[in-house]
């Protein structure tokens, strides 16, 4: 074991804690110190050191009595979209800058139930609307990755950019994240980490600030597949407080890591071979296919004919739901209030000042596509296209395919500011991930290798509904075969 406990994976730390060769307090302090040195990354919006030490102290007591839970003493970061009792929850927005929930999200409460320690709240795109973490009202997150020989700040991806960056920079053992159109998988791919978006309904949405209700899902970002599986088991489960959560038993996902994938049928959707796809992405994809074939999987070509419509349909459905979900931010019961001439003016001023440009843009689009005379042409049509997208997957799965393999993103991470003025080109980041949300399916991003610029590239596996275990097995096989992803050394601490 190394002297620096932040080098341990979650599974290793768990075992060391259980063996009492490491205390949670020492581990937690090491992370708190790492977070302090990482301020330039802007990954944490809020640090909770006192809370962390108190939780760690309790965890050590439990571990000493042999009563530790599955995550006892494990320090985690929480995406600031999850409401945390007594701890400011901003959703990355001015409008919630001073909001202190009196309640805890179900998913985070399950992590605390299992013994995890909260280090603080992680930066994100405002209301999870973004693919680069640049829409956060509290400044962008800087990726721990840089091109060799360059000082240019790169984006960590979004919207769970703080989560991905914190995990990649070893500022926490794992982090919660959310994925509406790719917000777990795209930042995981950009930062050389593992992120899984489970099947819609697998995790409770209770207490997670809503972006687009029919697409949002919670999931973890972790340093490897096993760690992600461990976190997933604690996060998943039916919640009577979320009518869309599904009452199915939660497997011990870790058991699927390392399980044989021999005989699994992997579909390669030809529609993901998009025009202008960089050669390195194409090469990565081929490499992934070879790795799975070598592991004993059978590779078949499949077709998902409506793939190219997923992104445009998403950019109708998600803003429509968001425009309604964000109506509650009106300056009456919580959050920012800007005085106005009258109540209507107060609403207008509050929301104009409280929401950033991207959120305003999406609320406007969403309002428009739902408005009288446009609803059928936009919203209803998009939901019909969504049905077709889902049917594409159903057809493929009915033919016996167990999972699909695709690239996670169309490129490696880009520079902060590079796509700022072009919303549509920013939206294209989600081109490979968004279909999964539209169909409610599980998807995992796993590192596949480095780009020509020595930046991480990820592969995506898409599974059948509620068959996350298959994804963990396949992702572990890729992880096993791929060159080990060495996380960046902490240049930011210098």
């Amino acid at each position, binding site marked *: 074991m190394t002297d620096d406990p932040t080098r341990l994976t979650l599974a290793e730390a768990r075992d060391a804690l259980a063996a009492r060769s490491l205390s949670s307090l020492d581990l937690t302090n090491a992370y708190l110190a790492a977070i302090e040195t990482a301020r330039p990354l802007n990954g944490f919006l809020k640090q909770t050191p006192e809370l962390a030490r108190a939780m760690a102290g309790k965890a050590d007591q439990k571990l000493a009595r042999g009563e530790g839970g599955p995550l006892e003493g494990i320090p985690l970061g929480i995406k600031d979209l*999850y*409401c945390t009792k007594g701890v400011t*929850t901003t*959703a990355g927005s001015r409008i*919630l800058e001073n*909001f202190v*929930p*009196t*309640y805890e*999200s179900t998913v985070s409460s399950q992590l605390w139930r299992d013994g995890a320690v909260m280090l603080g709240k992680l930066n994100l795109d405002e209301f999870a609307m973004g693919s680069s973490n640049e829409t956060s009202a509290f400044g962008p997150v800087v990726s721990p990755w840089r091109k060799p020989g360059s000082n240019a700040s790169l984006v960590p991806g979004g919207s769970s950019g703080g989560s991905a960056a914190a995990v990649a920079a070893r500022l926490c053992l794992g982090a919660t994240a959310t994925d509406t159109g790719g917000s777990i998988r795209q930042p995981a791919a950009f930062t050389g980490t593992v992120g899984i978006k489970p099947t819609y309904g697998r995790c409770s*949405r*209770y*207490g*997670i*600030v*809503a972006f*687009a*209700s*029919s697409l949002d899902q919670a999931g973890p970002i972790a340093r490897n597949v096993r760690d992600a599986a461990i976190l997933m088991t604690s996060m998943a489960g039916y919640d*009577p*407080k*979320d*009518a*869309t959560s599904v009452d199915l038993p939660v497997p011990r996902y870790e058991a699927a890591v390392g399980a044989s994938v021999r005989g699994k049928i992997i579909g390669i959707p030809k529609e993901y071979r998009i025009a202008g796809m960089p050669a390195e992405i194409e090469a990565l994809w081929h490499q992934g296919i070879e790795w799975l074939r070598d592991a004993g999987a059978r590779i078949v070509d499949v077709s998902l004919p409506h793939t190219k419509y997923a992104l445009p349909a998403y950019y109708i459905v998600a803003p*429509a*739901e968001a*425009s*309604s979900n*964000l*109506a*509650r931010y*009106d300056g*009456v*019961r*919580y959050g920012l209030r800007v005085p106005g001439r009258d*109540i*209507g003016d107060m*609403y207008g001023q509050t929301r104009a000042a409280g929401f950033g440009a991207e959120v305003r843009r999406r609320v406007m689009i969403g*309002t428009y596509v*739902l*408005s*009288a005379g446009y*609803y059928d042409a936009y*919203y209803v049509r998009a939901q019909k296209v969504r049905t077709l997208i889902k049917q594409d997957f159903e057809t493929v799965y009915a033919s016996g395919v167990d999972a699909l393999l695709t690239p996670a993103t169309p490129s490696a991470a880009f520079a902060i500011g590079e796509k700022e003025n072009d919303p549509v080109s920013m939206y294209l980041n989600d081109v490979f991930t968004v279909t999964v949300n539209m169909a409610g399916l599980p998807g995992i991003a796993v590192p596949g290798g480095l780009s020509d610029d020595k930046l991480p590239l990820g592969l995506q596996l898409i599974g059948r509904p509620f068959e996350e275990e298959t994804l963990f097995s396949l992702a572990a096989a890729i992880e096993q075969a791929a060159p080990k992803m060495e996380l960046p050394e902490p240049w930011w601490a210098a």
Partner: protein
Amino acid sequence: MANTGSDRLLRGATGDWEVVVGMEIHAQVTSRSKLFSGASTEFGAEPNSHVSLVDAAMPGMLPVLNEACVAQAVRTGLGLKARINKRSSFDRKNYFYPDLPQGYQISQYKSPIVGEGEVTVDLTPTEQFRVGIERLHLEQDAGKSLHDQSPTASFVDLNRSGVALMEIVSRPDIRSADEAKAYVTKLRMILRYLGTCDGDMEKGSLRADVNVSVRRPGEPLGTRCEIKNVNSIRFIGQAVEVEARRQIAILEDGGAIDQETRLFDPSRGETRSMRSKEEAHDYRYFPDPDLLPLEFDDAFVETLAAALPELPDAKKSRFVTQYGLTPYDASVLVAERELADYFEAAVAVEPAGRDAKLVANWITGDVAAFANASGRGVADTHITPGQVAELVDLIAEGTISGKIAKDVLALVIREERNSKPREIVERRGLRQVTDTGAIEAAVDTIMATNPDKVAQAQAKPTMLGWFVGQVMKSTGGKANPQAVNDILRVKLGL
């Protein structure tokens, strides 16, 4: 049954007008907790006390549907002889208002839980007309804003926010103020029978949006105005009347009706435009993504149908056929379920077989008069069905006269609340004198002391009444009136 007399037309300066009324009734569902949260529905609590995080639309809060409210809506649908939709769904109606915390009302726009039905309305006990029901749907109530507490501020209380409402939409089948009142009266009666709404209009449990238009008989429908939130049956009648008069005056002046939302001001006896509601609304309805479609099976509906109470129409016709009541008496008795039950309990008291019509007369007569005077329902007084039954039996068997029975009831009301009428009669010696010897003696005495009256009576037989009165007086009202009559006729030679 249709009632299309010219009596329903309104006379204008230039001829007759027909009023056309349709109504949207908002009926609060009788339930312990709210439609989508576990907060209490109890009336009259401290501000914001019966409010959950869901009702206050805190970030990340989700609605979970109350199964009892679903059952109540189905039961109401069955009571309205309406189509029950085994699959329905919830939509969001988006608008901003300080007492609407989510920024949308969850309602059922596209697929309501109950479809078309019908109400038979009693205009008089023998005159009925039908009102078609277009639909019934479930939706959330809003909170309450107090506007008159301060010159500059409104105060918002969310206790009502999220309470379940049934919106019952009628067809425009109503043709007068009286019909409008009768419709609401009947609907309220049905809801109270079903126990699905307490119908308490003072507490706002039942409110009507009244759509009024006028036209020349036989012409197509005119432009309507919606009079919002009328909260008493009397006001509903007044609102229809004054709004129709207002519209007729405008039309007869050559003007046109603006389709608008108006408010009825009972103190001024007029309707006025609600300018705040006039800005063009665009509610942007779309399916609530936090809720899955609501589905249930035939068995669910059948179980509820089997447990449905007998409803007023069925009860009334049964009372007429089974007990030989007049339609008038039957409709008085069925107006309240408790009253009808009281009547049937009195009829059924052992030994059975008493004259139900007499029972009905006593209940709707003296007992009801006492109940009214004390501001209660008959069933809420201390007079028991058993006491009424015994009173009727005592008359029927000739033990007391109807007049003495009134005295006995008076004793039950005031002095002898818990006594059996038979015991009162015995104890107080009120038993009717049927002994002809005793009556003959009394007659002889009176004839002997009033020879002039005897002569008068023999000339003018209508004088008989005077003698009857004297005999009754001398026997303390206990003489059997029939026997007195018979003996007097013989002795006077009439």
